[in-house]
């Protein structure tokens, strides 16, 4: 099981990613964030701790996730990003769409 989701506190969920976050994860990642009850979510934390490679489909997945939760949960944090990943987010101006730590 590469992508896991756990409840941190009430309404706060943390999704931990695998070493690579690419097109192969589309289904898994979608299943993770859609598994949360629509009414219950207030905040998502996506942990990039183990991720060292990510391609453009990762950006598509994150945007789709944002669209899915749009209007219901706008607080999506991307944490523990390594320099390479952070560079991708900077170039694609994701730092304006998400909170990156």
């Amino acid at each position: 099981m590469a992508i896991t989701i756990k409840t941190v506190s009430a309404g706060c969920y943390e999704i931990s990613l695998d070493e690579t976050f690419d097109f192969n994860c589309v289904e898994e990642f979608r299943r993770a964030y859609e598994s949360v009850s629509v009414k219950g979510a207030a905040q998502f934390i996506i942990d990039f701790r183990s991720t060292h490679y990510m391609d453009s489909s990762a950006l598509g997945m994150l945007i789709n996730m944002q669209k899915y939760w749009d209007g219901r949960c706008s607080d999506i944090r991307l944490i523990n990003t390594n320099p390479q990943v952070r560079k991708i987010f900077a170039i694609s101006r994701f730092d304006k769409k998400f909170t990156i730590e």
Partner: protein
Amino acid sequence: MESNVKLLVVSGVTWTAALIVCLVFGVEATVAVIVGGAVVNGVMIARCGLGSEDKVEPSDDVERALIQVGEVLDLEGGVLCEALETSGRNINDVVGTSVESLSQSFQGLSARAQEQQSLMHELVAEISGSPGDTDGEAVTLSHFAEEVGTILDDYVKLFVDVSDKSVSAVHNIQDMVQHFDSMFLLINDIRGIADQTNLLALNAAIEAARAGEAGRGFAVVADEVRKLSQSSSLLNDQIREKAEVAKSTITRVEKVVGEIASLDMSIAIDAKGHLDGMLQQLENVNQGVSDGVSKMADASEKTHHDVNSAITALQFADIVSQEVSRLSEKISGLKSALASLPKDRDQVSEFEVSQLKEIVQQRIQASSVVASLSAGEADLF
């Protein structure tokens, strides 16, 4: 005889002193020295006459001395004055010509310095792009860099967009695959119904056979129902077959869309990194050029200033020429003073020491007036 020698010595010393003083201190002092020397000579001649009445012929000595003095004055004085006047004119000419050409050169230099400075400013504006020039026609380095940056941003935005749409398409495809899977379940159900119908038709046929002649018509119906269930089963198989082809096609589409969505971002990162590096270098080059040019402009400014100082300083050449003119005037005065000196003994008796003094006084007064005047003019500069 001893006093005659003394007289000659005094006369010689007077002229030598007059020459030196003329060169070093100016004409006024020279006149004073000459006249002073003449007075001393006269006094000595008088003393010779008084003191040696009974020893030698004083009148002869005095006459000879005076003739000698006169000769020396005529010869040396005239020539000297001529030479001094010529020198004065030459100095005036040379100084005038030099000052004029120097002045022209300096003005040319100043103009070039200003030209250089304005060229430098133009160059800087051209390279770095002045803020006023935003009509977009002028291709400046900063403008070019900005354009490239915008294009790269648009490019990144484009493939983020593509990725977003692709992932969205993949989600739809996956939903569709799920629908296919549930469709297969339904197809299975239909197949089950067909099988059961077939079995039912078989049972009906058996029952019809048992009924004998009365069941013959029913046997035909049962046979038809069995045929229908068989063709239904066949159709079901065909539908499943087609649906499976559709599913595998959709799966292939998903793969293609996945390939579209999965672009390696490292190319963009490298491009962005290179661009940032180039922009930084460009910035440095611009800064360097700008610094260099402003230093050169400063240097031009200083050159301009120095040249102006030089031109101002050249105006002092006027004072030099004025001084030389005055010198010439005084030399003329000296010449006429020399000419008015007595030539022989008879004239000596008429020429009194008081007259000499008067001439000296006049000269000194005239020169002091000129000196104060020139001092006042010098203050004006």
